[in-house]
């Protein structure tokens, strides 16, 4: 019997009991939907982590003022507490050799004007290591030289978004833009990074030297002398991260003269920790859904096997007749396998549809990242076919081994 004929016969048989067939495929539907949601959440999280790592680098620690221990809703230093000083950064560089890069930053936002174009956005006042720690590279220009840092030069480097908004097709190098009321010379542009791990536009950025920011852009804010808003550290070796974090905390507590038991007046944020938390949450979620999927597919498969066994018994005369008119064991086996696989494949198709909708809903109503792609669908389809094949084989084999004489004699 050719495959098309086998399929036609299977469709015919299932249609005769379509309610039963539909209920039988329910287990597969739920199982496959769970597979889709599971894989989508897993892939979404992986994509997010990849973005986070590529955007921030994984071997870094960020120190910000204020108290707080961690990520996600816990107090993270406000802009009005200035407990971190440039001296702290210098001390870390001097006393913790595992720290490869140190860069203090000041932040703010302003309006940037060039000719008739203007753009509002945030800026960063940085030290030289900032580029390395954050993985920024210059697309054009020479950037800041040593004198620009020490002399608070009115030089600026533009992110791709700002460059596009202000200059369009024009070459920005050497041009003068105004930040607030102060004219700055453009000395470089940054290579674009695209969207960040949290969905923000990383290229919407303007970079100036730290001292320039302190003297010319934050002058009116009454910043305490030597204060910085953040210190970013690059650690040479990822395995030293935890150790360095401990060292930094001890050093800063000592420098800030905090009594034992007193709360930190700074906050060290570890990107690896964030990633680990994210991964752990997702892994748990994936395992849970994986367990649900496995159980559903097994139960669904057993349901299929059960119904197919019933079907073989019910249709024993039909099997006998088909054998008498020339169906071989192979034909009978194929027919019942095709029916089992059809049930599980229909369940798979419905499950894929429900799973995609479910994954999108999870993405909408929870903070879990979700990525639905074609691989997921392929995987789910494979699972559904495999379920039908595995659990349909035994009943199909049983049918094929029937003795036609006995089968015809059954009532």
């Amino acid at each position, binding site marked *: 019997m050719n495959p098309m004929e086998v399929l036609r016969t299977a469709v*015919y048989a299932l249609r*005769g009991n379509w309610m039963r067939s539909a209920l039988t495929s329910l287990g597969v539907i739920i199982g496959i939907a769970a597979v889709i949601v599971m894989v989508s959440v897993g892939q979404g999280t992986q994509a997010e982590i990849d973005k986070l790592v590529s955007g921030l680098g994984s071997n870094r620690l960020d120190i910000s003022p204020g108290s707080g221990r961690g990520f996600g809703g816990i107090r993270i230093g406000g802009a009005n507490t200035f407990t971190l000083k440039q001296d702290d950064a210098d001390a870390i560089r001097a006393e913790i050799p595992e720290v490869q890069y140190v860069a203090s930053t000041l932040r703010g936002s302003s309006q940037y004007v060039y000719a008739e174009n203007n753009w509002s956005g945030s800026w960063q006042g940085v030290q030289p290591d900032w580029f390395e720690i954050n993985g920024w590279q210059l697309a054009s220009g020479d950037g800041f030289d040593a004198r620009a840092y020490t002399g608070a030069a009115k030089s600026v480097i533009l992110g791709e978004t700002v460059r596009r908004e202000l200059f369009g097709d024009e070459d920005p190098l050497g041009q003068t833009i105004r930040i607030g009321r102060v004219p700055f010379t453009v000395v470089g542009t940054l290579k674009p990074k695209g969207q960040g791990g949290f969905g923000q536009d990383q290229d919407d950025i303007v970079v100036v030297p730290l001292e320039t920011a302190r003297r010319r852009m934050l002058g009116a804010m009454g910043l305490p002398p030597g204060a910085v808003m953040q210190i970013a550290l690059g650690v040479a070796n990822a395995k030293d991260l935890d150790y360095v974090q401990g060292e930094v905390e001890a050093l800063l507590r000592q420098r800030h003269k905090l009594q034992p038991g007193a709360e930190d007046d700074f906050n060290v944020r570890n990107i690896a920790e964030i990633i680990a938390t994210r991964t752990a949450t997702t892994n748990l979620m994936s395992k849970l859904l994986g367990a649900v999927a496995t159980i559903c597919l097994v139960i669904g498969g057993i349901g299929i096997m059960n119904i197919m066994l019933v079907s073989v018994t019910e249709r024993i005369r039909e099997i006998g*007749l088909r*054998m*008498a*008119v020339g169906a071989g064991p192979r034909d009978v086996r194929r027919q019942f396998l095709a029916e089992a696989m059809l049930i599980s494949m229909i369940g798979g198709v419905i499950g894929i549809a429900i799973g995609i909708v479910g994954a999108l809903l999870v993405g909408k109503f929870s903070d879990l990242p979700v990525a639905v792609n074609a691989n997921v669908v392929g995987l789910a389809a494979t699972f559904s076919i495999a379920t039908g094949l595995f659990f349909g084989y035994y009943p199909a084999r049983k049918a094929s081994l029937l003795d036609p*004489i006995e089968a015809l004699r059954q009532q």
Partner: protein
Amino acid sequence: MSAASTAPVAARAVIETQALDKVYAQGTEAEVVALRGVDLRILQGEFVAIMGPSGSGKSTLMNLLGCLDTPSAGVYRCDGVDVATLDAEQRARLRLDKIGFVFQGFNLLPRMSALENVSMPMGYANVHRGERLERAHAALAAVGLGNREGHKPSEMSGGQQQRVAIARALINRPPILLADEPTGALDSKTGEEILALFKSLQRDGHTVVLITHDPDVAHHCDRIFVMRDGQLSEEARA
């Protein structure tokens, strides 16, 4: 079949058995000897009856002749093929090519129309669907049911159902037609019509082996064999 009509004298045996034995549960206390040394030779184009009381071994012989079973000893050549050498898959293929079954209980598939029932065996012979429906159409017309193609078995009389079953048995153009009590479930008038149909099939060159316990039915045949306690003998015609 054209060979039979042009040269009937040289007709060859489509069924040939030599010393056929069939023993069930051999070597145990429940051993039953169903057939003993059955010799049978049926030529192409013959219309033959096999008679005998219940339990005489008729059905066993029928199953063997229909290649549903293999003999315990002896040789059966079905249209020249020694059945004992075949496995289940090959015997299925042989049934497909050589045997058409007609049963007492018709054995139509209840959810299929007459046309689908008749075309069903051709699916296993990998006949193209278009040709299948065409041939099924012609076969139903040949048994006088050209206007009943779309009817389900439950919508037809017993005689009509048996005609559908006969059309199905003929659909792969097998050289042998095996009918097991084909009129047993029909009233005598309808039974006569079915027997008339078999006779017309014989005139078209088909070989028909009819199994029955009814002497009136057997009398329509060219030759009559009788089974008694597993042994077969030919009855002289009166």
